[in-house]
């Protein structure tokens, strides 16, 4: 009986130890529209996107990029997506480009009620003939 108790405790501890790292890794495996996307991050040193829906339905969006020194130009393409029929559909997208190593983009857009929304931004950096890309997905918001 005592042995069984110890075995149960051991199994619980083992299960916990194995579960915590795997749940953390599970958060990493995000993809775009179900397809696997592997960012490169060789010329880009920092990128971010911000997505917030105000109470009046105005989606407030920004994106910024910063690349390593010596980059010719950078660009960003942001897709405002709505969750419809179990899939993310782009309802509007914007592209912003800047010569130099950094860029900032900002936009407001009114959205309809009853849906979940997110902002997917693709970042690009160009240096001569080589290019680098990365992507970020914002937190999902329901309006």
């Amino acid at each position, binding site marked *: 009986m005592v042995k069984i108790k110890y075995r149960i405790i051991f199994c619980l501890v083992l299960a916990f130890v194995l579960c915590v790292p795997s749940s953390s890794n599970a958060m990493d495996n995000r993809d775009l529209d179900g397809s696997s996307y592997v960012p490169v991050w060789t010329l880009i040193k920092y990128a971010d996107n911000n997505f917030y829906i105000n109470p009046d339905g105005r989606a407030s969006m920004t994106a910024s990029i910063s690349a390593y020194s010596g980059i010719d130009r950078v660009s960003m393409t942001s897709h405002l997506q709505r969750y419809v029929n179990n899939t993310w559909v782009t309802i509007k997208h914007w592209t912003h480009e800047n010569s130099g190593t950094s860029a900032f983009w900002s936009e407001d857009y009114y959205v309809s009620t009853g849906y979940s929304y997110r902002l997917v931004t693709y970042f690009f950096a160009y240096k001569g003939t080589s290019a680098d890309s990365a992507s970020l997905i914002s*937190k999902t918001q329901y309006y």
Partner: protein
Amino acid sequence: MNKNTLNERILDEIIRYAVTNNIEETKWTREEELAKRYTFSASHEQKMQQLFKQQKRKEKIAHMKRSALKIAAGVLIFLSVSFVTVMSVDALRVNILNFINERLDNYTKVSVDETEKPNAEIQGEVMPAYLPEGYEKVFFEYKNDYYFSTYQDKNGNEIILVKLSEWTTAGIDSEDAYMERLIVNGHAAEYYEKNSNSTLLYRYEGKVFLLSGPISKNEIIKIAESLEIKRYKYFQNKLKSL
């Protein structure tokens, strides 16, 4: 084995044999017969029952103590293992610092946890009081508790300062980067170094900031520690001039 020891052992064996035979031959009186032969008083019976109860209670308490100790040891082991595991998983550990980091293959994804309220509400721009020589502000844009500003020198070298908000999802190139945990402004911070570029993720007044540029670690920390709320300083200067 000497002679004396041998003799002692032989004697012991003889005694043991004799005692065993005697026990077998002894006719033990049965419990019923004993009961007929001796009659115990009611008070004696009561006392005996009390003694039995006390003994049973003592045994029960001792058993409970042993079980409690085992359970406590088990819980302690479980908590220790859980703590070590939780603290060894980056995504969970950094959450304690008010921002959540997910270390992916090519980069580190950062998002801000605003469940912890800032110590003081930041009113106005939070700007560095110190910048390395030759750098000046060339861009600043503020939106929904987030801002992005850049500082440049004459050679086009650029430092960025970003204030991350609850709605920000950010990525830092951390592949093959040197990474270090530091204390900046009294809070845990993360420092990344790659391609002669320093990046610092840190907190100021409960808010999360990111500084990145082609400068040394000491310089980036100096900038981070020089942050101050500009509007506050403006009013201070106004008061001084009155």
